[in-house]
């Protein structure tokens, strides 16, 4: 079967677009959205099950499949418009590459997702993994104006547009952002950009966890304008104590004034990081998330932060944790964990109305727990029908829900 399969793949993407992964599985690397659509139309017709891969730096390439498809070949920054602050990029473009390209034109994409700079923008959007800047600039969905997606049966859907405000038709892109590839494979994105801020300062303070979260509450109540206010566990910060980090952006005078309010109004000793150190601090903490085999996020708002951190420590461990200490909230945990411990965490979290999303884990964990695992009333049936609509053969190897006893 494999030889015939390879021949069919080569007809679509050429010989150079077909390779084998380390386990010998055929891996197809299309270089255009149209080729991707033809590939999935073929796979659907033959009932070949597909595993989606990006740059291979985030999710392990271990989902069972008849073939793998990589977005690595979709590597063009198609257009960048400084006047309109919008970029059109292929899904396989690495976030680091995109950042450099945009900075050349005085712009940036205001997201700082976990992972390495090599991580593809498609992976970031498909997993909906925002970083500390979600406090100031919102979740990943707020940065995507439009996208192209190839469905499980090879249809090409172009959702949204290239303008910042747009309510024409249903907002189909939202299903794909954070959909983990369960509803198709994102091939191209229109991204909302911002002009680089005139000033960008980072302050950190070290103390015990409860002290830091208490100060963060005061800062939030005092309504400081902080673009990030994130707490880091000692393990992730490689420090003896917990760290609270604040990032302030804006005009020089505005940032200076906000920094004064930050450092004056509470009981911590704040240290301003020089530009280079600030940059490496944020990058290293984003990368440190990869230090555990499992990464998950909890939807928690600030008032529930202490209890949720206690719950994590009790159920798993106080491993690699970053948490939004401002109004945006959110906890990300990375580490090693047994499936039953993760299952217990999800159950405990659910009893407190806290959703737990499995962001990355080896396939056996994903398969048993699912990225989402638990839904609220009526949602499971809708998700099932949406999957059948966008992947009628159920051939995309993505575990949104997990096995029955994983829940």
């Amino acid at each position, binding site marked *: 079967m494999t030889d015939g399969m390879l021949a069919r793949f080569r007809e679509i993407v050429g010989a150079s677009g077909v390779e084998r992964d380390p386990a010998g599985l055929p891996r197809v690397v299309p270089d255009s959205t149209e080729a991707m659509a033809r590939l999935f139309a073929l796979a659907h017709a033959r009932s070949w099950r597909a595993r989606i891969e990006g740059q291979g730096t985030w999710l392990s390439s271990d989902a069972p499949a008849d073939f793998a498809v990589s977005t690595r070949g979709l590597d063009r920054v198609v257009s960048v418009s400084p*006047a*309109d*602050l919008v970029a059109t990029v292929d899904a396989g473009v690495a976030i680091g590459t995109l950042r450099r390209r945009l900075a050349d034109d005085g712009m940036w994409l205001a997201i700082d997702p976990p992972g390495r700079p090599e991580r593809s923008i498609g992976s970031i959007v498909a997993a909906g993994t925002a970083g500390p800047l979600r406090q100031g600039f*919102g979740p990943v*969905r*707020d940065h995507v104006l439009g996208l192209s997606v190839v469905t499980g049966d090879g249809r090409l*859907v*172009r*959702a949204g*547009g290239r*303008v*910042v*405000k*747009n*309510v*024409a*038709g*249903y*907002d*189909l892109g*939202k*299903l794909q952002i954070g*959909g983990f590839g369960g509803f198709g494979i994102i091939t191209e994105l229109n991204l909302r950009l*911002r*002009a680089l801020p*005139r000033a960008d300062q980072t302050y950190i303070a070290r103390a015990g966890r409860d002290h830091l979260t208490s100060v963060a509450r005061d800062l939030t109540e005092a309504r400081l*304008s902080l673009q990030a206010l994130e707490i880091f566990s000692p393990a992730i910060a490689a420090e003896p104590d917990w760290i609270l980090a604040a990032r302030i952006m*804006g*005009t*020089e*005078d*505005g940032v200076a*004034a*906000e920094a004064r*309010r930050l450092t004056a109004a509470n009981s911590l000793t704040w240290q301003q990081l020089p530009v280079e150190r600030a940059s490496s601090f944020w990058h290293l903490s984003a990368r440190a998330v990869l230090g555990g085999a499992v990464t998950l996020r909890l939807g928690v*708002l*600030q008032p529930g932060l202490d209890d949720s951190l206690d719950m994590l420590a009790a159920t798993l461990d106080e491993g690699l944790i970053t948490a939004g200490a401002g109004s*945006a909230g959110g906890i990300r945990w990375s580490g090693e964990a047994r499936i039953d411990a993760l299952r217990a965490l999800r159950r405990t979290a659910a*009893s407190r*109305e*806290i*959703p737990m999303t499995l962001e990355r884990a080896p396939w056996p964990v994903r398969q048993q727990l699912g990225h989402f695992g*638990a*839904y*609220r*009333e*009526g*949602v499971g*049936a809708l*998700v099932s*029908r949406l*999957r*059948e*609509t966008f992947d*009628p*053969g*159920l051939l995309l190897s993505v575990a*949104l*829900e997990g096995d029955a006893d994983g*829940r």
Partner: protein
Amino acid sequence: MNEALLASLSAIVGPRWVRHRKAELATYTMDGLPTHESYPGVVVLPGSRDELIAVVRQLHATRTPFVARGAGTGLSGGALAEGNAVLVALTRLNRILSVDPKTRRAVVEPGVVNARLSEAVLPHGLQYVPDPSSQTACTIGGNVAENAGGPHCLKAGVTTNHVTDLEIILPDGSLARLGSTHGDAWGPDLVGLFVGSEGMFGIASRITVRLEPIPATVRTMLADFPSIRSASEAVSAIIASGIVPAALEMMDQACVQAVEASIYAAGYPTDAAAVLLVELDGQPESVAAEHAVVEPLLRAHRARNVLTAETAYDRARLWQGRKKAFGAMGRIAPDLVVQDAVVPRSALPDVLDRIGEIRDRYGLHISNVFHAGDGNLHPNISFDRRNVALAERVRNASREIMTACVAAGGSITGEHGVGNDKLDYMPLIFDAETLGAMQATRRVFDPGERANPGKVVPVHACREWCATPAARTNGSHGRPLAEVTHD
């Protein structure tokens, strides 16, 4: 209308809240857009969530099409019911169920009026940011259906960015709870998918919204320009400077003159080709610093005068002129088509020139008032719909304006929705496959296509999608999932 259905609806909500005489129905024949008018078969006004659920279940049992309606300010013909469709008016579901200042969340029923929510949370120093110009009338449920915007959505985002959690009643009468109060969702972003679905996926019965702190300082500037082009270029320069104002609104001379001749006169200079309202908010030092950047940019782009409103009264006056501009246009002619389109900011000057050219060619009166920072245009055509030939010119001019906006890389609607007004424009921006995907998604929520039938997706232009029956019944993802939320 079917007597048995009337009786069953009356039994649920009480006879007083079922309207079926023609004179009673007249109120519900438009949504502010004079080019679309139709009488619903019957109007039902449930007074509670339980009544709403019972109504939807009854409509499902009788396979009756229905249209959910808030205040009827949508301006796209979206909340009109035709033929025997039942209009479900949600204005009696107007309770604010809870406000939690700690988590900055409020839970509301769909009929809560937008401005009333902000008033209610004001004592907590909070506000609900999306502020359509119709905010004193429009409802949060309608805002959710249309993904409404408003002048202050430039920095803070539109409705979809402020809704965290929805309880929806599907057209078959079953309930689903989408999203999560806590931020991250339980599962895929179905809140994002539902918001803006124009009442075609079901009815939101409980809505949880995010509240934002009222900024410590607000400074509103009024700049007037000798040309629309120079004002547009000032807008681009401000955004390119890295400053995102809370609002960045433009009015052309025709609009300013209408406002200044009305009771909403705000002191705008009537000899200016365009005026720009720029609002900065935040901490006092940040606002001062941004002001120090923005004012020279305005002057560098040939602003003749830059006034800064220092008091709340002055700010309110400046905003009143903007927000009541549509009302002020009532002086010009009996009818007004408020158009809604979006273009990339850089295309604003050229598109506005093009609209001027279309206006002249058709001999129409067009005033422009728009969210310049977003590139969201509202060319408003004043006319008298009793003049059939004129109404035809309005239709043709509207289409040319839309075509010009699309050609510039824009969209056919930024905040009013497609409704039935823009159905025919959808193929200008979406191909048959994508329209087919929309139709298939609609069927996920509403297989019988009974919720707000005939809107948004031009079915004739869709490529057909169909889920395989085998997958639907046997697929591994088809089983209902356990509810662990309330374990």
